[in-house]
């Protein structure tokens, strides 16, 4: 029971981190772009925080705010000066450009900071406390708490603010949105800004205890992809739900893998494929994903 609860906490924390990334990918996806550079943004953001906090000796929170500002500007500029120029005319070109940016970000980090494991620069490290036999890591609790707060803010913004409604309108039909007076460029900038900001925050938590910062961090963004499909592509609620399921699956399978192995030889490292098995099962029952809508089409 203790093991299960312990795994539940780590699983929820991991799911929370994934859900920020998945949300970031989803809101850009709603604007018609599958952004493969999400992991790249996350990597650059997390390394910037770490570099400012450790090499430059900045206060961690100051470093976080500065990095958020820098990556948000980076994301907005990428949308405004590169992607907007393509005018969404060729989906494949857009896809390849985001893919290329992802590689550039990864190489840039490796070339400037190196490939060694390093601290993400957070002041809490492996701090935590015990309740009975149950261990609570501060990094996990903060990830769950901050994600919860961010999600509440996001959904309020998305559902009832003027800019949030404008975001949804642009995602559904940008021509019609422009016709009712919505500045599509500005809305896209806001979308990219939010997306990159939440992803950077996820990156910092992902590189926290018990993990470290390393150039492979960006791959976590690819783990958010099955979460998106599982939750229903394009649904923000689905992105969050799918991420929690994937996070829990990964951690529970990793935790119980050895026990299961005694009875059924599933081998080690099954947690890497477990999310896809869950995905397959869900899609067999609900092809549109948990919160996806059937037959959404753009006229």
């Amino acid at each position: 029971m203790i093991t299960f609860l312990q795994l539940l906490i780590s699983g929820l924390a991991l799911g929370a981190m994934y859900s920020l990334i998945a949300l970031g990918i989803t809101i850009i996806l709603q604007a018609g772009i599958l952004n493969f550079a999400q992991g790249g943004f996350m990597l650059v953001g997390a390394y910037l925080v770490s570099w400012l906090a450790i090499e430059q000796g900045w206060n961690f929170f100051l470093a976080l705010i500065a990095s958020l500002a820098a990556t948000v500007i980076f994301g907005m500029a990428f949308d405004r000066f590169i992607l907007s120029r393509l005018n969404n005319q060729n989906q494949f070109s857009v896809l390849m450009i985001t893919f290329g940016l992802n590689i550039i970000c990864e190489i840039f980090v490796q070339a400037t900071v190196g490939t060694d494991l390093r601290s993400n620069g957070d002041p809490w490290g492996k701090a935590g406390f015990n309740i009975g036999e149950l261990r609570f890591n501060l990094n996990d609790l903060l990830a769950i708490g901050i994600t919860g707060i961010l999600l509440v803010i996001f959904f309020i913004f998305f559902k009832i603010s003027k800019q949030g409604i404008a975001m949804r309108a642009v995602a559904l039909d940008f021509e019609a949105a422009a016709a009712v007076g919505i500045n599509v460029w500005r809305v896209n900038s806001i979308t990219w800004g939010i997306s990159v900001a939440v992803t950077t925050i996820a990156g910092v938590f992902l590189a926290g205890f018990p993990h470290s910062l390393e150039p492979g961090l960006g791959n976590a963004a690819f783990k958010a992809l099955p979460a998106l499909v599982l939750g229903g592509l394009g649904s923000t609620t689905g992105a969050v739900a799918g991420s929690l399921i994937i996070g829990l699956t990964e951690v529970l399978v990793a935790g119980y893998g050895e026990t299961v192995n005694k009875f059924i030889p599933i081998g080690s490292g099954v947690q890497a494929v477990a999310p896809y098995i869950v995905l397959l099962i869900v899609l067999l029952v609900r092809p549109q994903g948990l919160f996806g809508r059937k037959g959404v089409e753009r006229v």
Partner: protein
Amino acid sequence: MSKLNPSNLKEDNSKLSDAPLLLVENITLKFKGIVALNNISFEVWPGELFAIIGPNGAGKTSLFNSITRVYQPQSGTIQFAGHNLLKLRTDQLASVGIARTFQNLGLFPLMTVLENLLVGRHHLMKVGLIPGGLGFGPGAREERTHRKRCLEIAKLLGLGPWLGRLPRDLPYGIQKKIELARALLSEPKILLLDEPVAGMNHEETYEIAEVILLIQSEMGITQILVEHDMAMVMGIADRIMVLNFGQRIALGEPAEIQANPEVIRAYLGQSEG
């Protein structure tokens, strides 16, 4: 919030009635050597229901897209209520008083009908947060005003029963009315309708024609109607401009247009070919 009262709009219009609301002069639009619009000029008066017709490829849509700032004409001017339209972006048109509907419907299919209507108020919203049904907060008063206006227009167009539904679950005729309602909710001085009855049956066409006349008589809003359906246009428009191959071949009242030999030739020639 005098803007919210339709009777005030009528007064605005009467003040302007000695000058055209929309003045298009010598517009020429070319695509890689093909002349889509050749030196087109016309004016639309306040309160008028002005129709633009012509066979396929006549330049109706090109003209519509030039006014709605999708295309940039190579020469000519478009003046609207003191604004040089050619200097504005599409998303700036709502705030100068131009609203439009789309030929293939420009609704937001996954937002409720009421949300679709509220989006029409986008450029009129000052407070960023709309507190939903909470009924408090800085935007509550403003939101009540916007919602009230949405309900008024919805009632006028008979959309009351559908407000909580998703547009994509509703019949085409209703969807068209939602789009019209959303356009009206931006409190426009002029409403541009791109083939509003395209693909509609006789009954739906009749209903939309009634709504267009209602908008003119009840709200006093100027309308430009780009249309294929000759019978409908002849029945409701105050004046008609006929385009063919990017040229203006006629401009006048329905009776004059019907008797114009060049118009008859353009239309018959097309249907025979």
